[in-house]
């Protein structure tokens, strides 16, 4: 899994908002997503800019597209987020009990000058 690509995709507030909007209603067309973002973001976001953001998210594996009849719909892919959490974030955020206990002991020892 390409963490760099994933974090770059997530490092933009508009793209994070797009994921939030898809979490609220999955399977949106470009039009719906654009209307939703404009009502949040103001009129400054062009459809071309939105297309680019969609491409970045798709390349990071965070969304997939599906044609329904003749319209393209966008779906949130949650698995890269779960993988990122399992592989890298959780071990940092929630170290196993023993390691945490050892680290706490080390800090106490340090403070006690041992």
């Amino acid at each position, binding site marked *: 899994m390409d963490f760099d690509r994933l974090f770059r995709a997530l490092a933009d507030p508009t793209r994070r908002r797009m994921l939030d909007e898809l979490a609220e*209603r999955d399977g*949106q*067309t*470009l*039009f*719906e997503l654009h*209307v*939703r973002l404009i*009502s949040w973001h103001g009129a400054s976001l062009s*459809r071309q800019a939105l297309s680019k953001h969609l491409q970045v998210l798709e390349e990071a594996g965070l969304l997939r597209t599906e044609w*329904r*009849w*003749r*319209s*393209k*719909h966008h779906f949130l892919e949650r698995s890269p987020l779960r993988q990122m959490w399992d592989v890298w974030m959780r071990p940092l955020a929630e170290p196993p009990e023993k390691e945490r206990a050892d680290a706490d002991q080390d800090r106490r020892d340090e403070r006690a000058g041992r």
Partner: protein
Amino acid sequence: MPIKIVVTSVLVDDQEKALRFYRDILGFELKHDIPMGHHRWLTLTSPGDSDGVELLLEPDEHPAAKPWKTALVADGIPATSFGVEDVHAEHARLSALGVAFTQPPVHLGPVTTAVFDDSCGNLIQIAQRH
């Protein structure tokens, strides 16, 4: 006398099919049906408003029309928008008649909108103001 909007149009792939959709399913009323060469000057009005703005069902014969329509549909962009009193009720009514929606009713600020396929190559938005 200011300039007024009298006729607006949608580009349809088949006028007869479009008449059935816009009259029999959406509920508009036929206003003019005048033969014009291969085609017809075919307009409808909102129910109960025969003096109101007319919708022209215009043939999409121009070579640029179809690529343009196809690109709009691909991105989910409606060709035009109509007003309704209750988007949820219309969504239920039209769905029961077999109309396909690309967007179910979504509340966005001052409006609730939904988008459906007119079966003539366009997406159409319906909007309810709050």
